[in-house]
């Protein structure tokens, strides 16, 4: 079963258009939305959550055609956690207990402890990292089936980020759970995601299984003359470096004898965006 299906999603603003986005997130999987600032990641998430009205397309979420019908089953962390500044974590717990039917207070308290969040300090005195951690604790405390995370790991220090990524990984151990996550920190997505979607200027450049991407693509370092020997369809992007030309290539089309290095998701994205420009 697919947790999330987006078909031909479109939205226009003055000066920006999210153009015909189609994505499918199967249950038990994590999909990372990668894109530069203004690529359309947050717009996509807001359209899924019906915070924006779509101009066209459909969104099916946990089998329903409106997020309103499945909000109990969704945990959301936005890039700015909108908790009232005067509330402490204990009060937040009471507000959420009055909001979610499936609120798990014991789980919430355990997460507060695990993430070292104080229970009496008001939210206004939290650092950005602490705010994000509280947002994550709430999202994980009501037995959600889908987590939608918009830049949820930004502002966290590397150690906590690693802990949080581990928590997300535990979350998807359950086959009925899934995560849609957008982040600038591509290394987090690389660790966590099963699927990667590249967005650039409102367009979906690709949406593919991460392992397949890493298998299909590679990097070669060569001279301009050597590059000419490669088929145009093989080379997906080039970058000049002090040592020659670095080219993103389709591994299967590279002639035998060439040294093809593994490519990271971050490099893959940078090459593709430059090529799209």
């Amino acid at each position, binding site marked *: 079963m697919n947790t999330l299906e987006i078909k031909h999603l479109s939205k226009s603003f003055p000066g920006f258009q999210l153009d015909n986005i189609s994505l499918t997130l199967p249950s038990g999987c994590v999909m990372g939305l990668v894109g530069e600032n203004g690529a359309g990641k947050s717009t996509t998430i807001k359209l899924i959550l019906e*915070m*924006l009205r779509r101009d066209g397309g459909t969104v099916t979420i946990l089998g329903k055609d409106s997020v309103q019908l499945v909000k*109990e089953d969704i945990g959301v962390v936005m890039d700015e956690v*909108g908790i*009232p*500044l*005067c509330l402490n974590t204990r009060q937040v717990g009471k*507000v959420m207990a009055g909001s979610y039917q499936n609120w798990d207070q014991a789980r919430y308290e355990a997460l507060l402890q695990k993430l070292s969040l104080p229970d009496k300090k008001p939210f206004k005195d939290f650092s950005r990292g602490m705010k994000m951690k509280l947002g994550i604790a709430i999202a994980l405390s009501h037995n959600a089936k889908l987590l939608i995370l918009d830049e949820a790991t930004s502002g966290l220090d590397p150690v906590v980020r690693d802990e949080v990524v581990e928590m997300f990984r535990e979350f998807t151990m359950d086959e009925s759970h899934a995560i849609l996550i957008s982040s600038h920190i591509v290394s987090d997505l690389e660790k966590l995601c099963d699927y990667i979607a590249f967005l650039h200027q409102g367009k979906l450049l690709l949406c593919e299984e991460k392992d397949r991407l890493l298998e299909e693509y590679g990097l070669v370092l060569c001279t301009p003359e050597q590059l000419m020997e490669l088929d145009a369809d093989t080379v997906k992007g080039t970058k000049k470096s002090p040592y020659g030309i670095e080219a993103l290539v389709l591994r299967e089309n590279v002639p035998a004898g060439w040294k093809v290095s593994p490519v990271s998701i971050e490099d893959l994205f940078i090459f593709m965006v430059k090529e799209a420009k």
Partner: protein
Amino acid sequence: MRGLLLKDLYMAWKYCKLYLLMVVGFLMIAAGGHSNSFFLIYPSIMSGLIPMSLLAYDEQHKWDQYSLTLPYTRVQLVSVKFLVGLALCFVVVISSALVLAIRMLTANEFSWNIWIVWVGSVLCSCLLGPSLCLPFMFKLGAEKGRIFYSISLGLLCAICVLLTLNLPTGTGITDLAAVIPLACLVSIAIFALSWWLSIRFYEKREF
């Protein structure tokens, strides 16, 4: 909607404590025998400001966006502010009615007509603030909403002044007793209309 009400209760206590204390203080002054009607009407105006302040804080803290991800409908998110307004109105009207009755009885000058006029006036002024302001705030956001509220409040005051100027000479407060029930009904109708409009506006708003 329990969570939303609880959250507004926490926020009202934290940010609007001064308003609440002023409401209590002014009513106590009125109960103490001060005949100036300002002490009776002002608490109702103050209480009407609280739902607007809560909404402005929601926007400032980005709760308006976050709450859309919680298991609430937009109708519920709007309605909670009107329910807070109604609850405060109920408390202020009942308190004012009691305070006024005590003051009139202790002075041995109780008059049903005067009592009805004042209690009705308190009810109208309690409902007026949220009715005029909330639809603008739900449509345009807190900042722009307040500007439109000020304009509409100015227009309403001008209409009231014009109506007062056209009253026959010698009209006293007791003569208003006949029109106060109608004024109360109109205020309640405006409040209901404002609630409905706010829902319509908020359902169309994008974040």
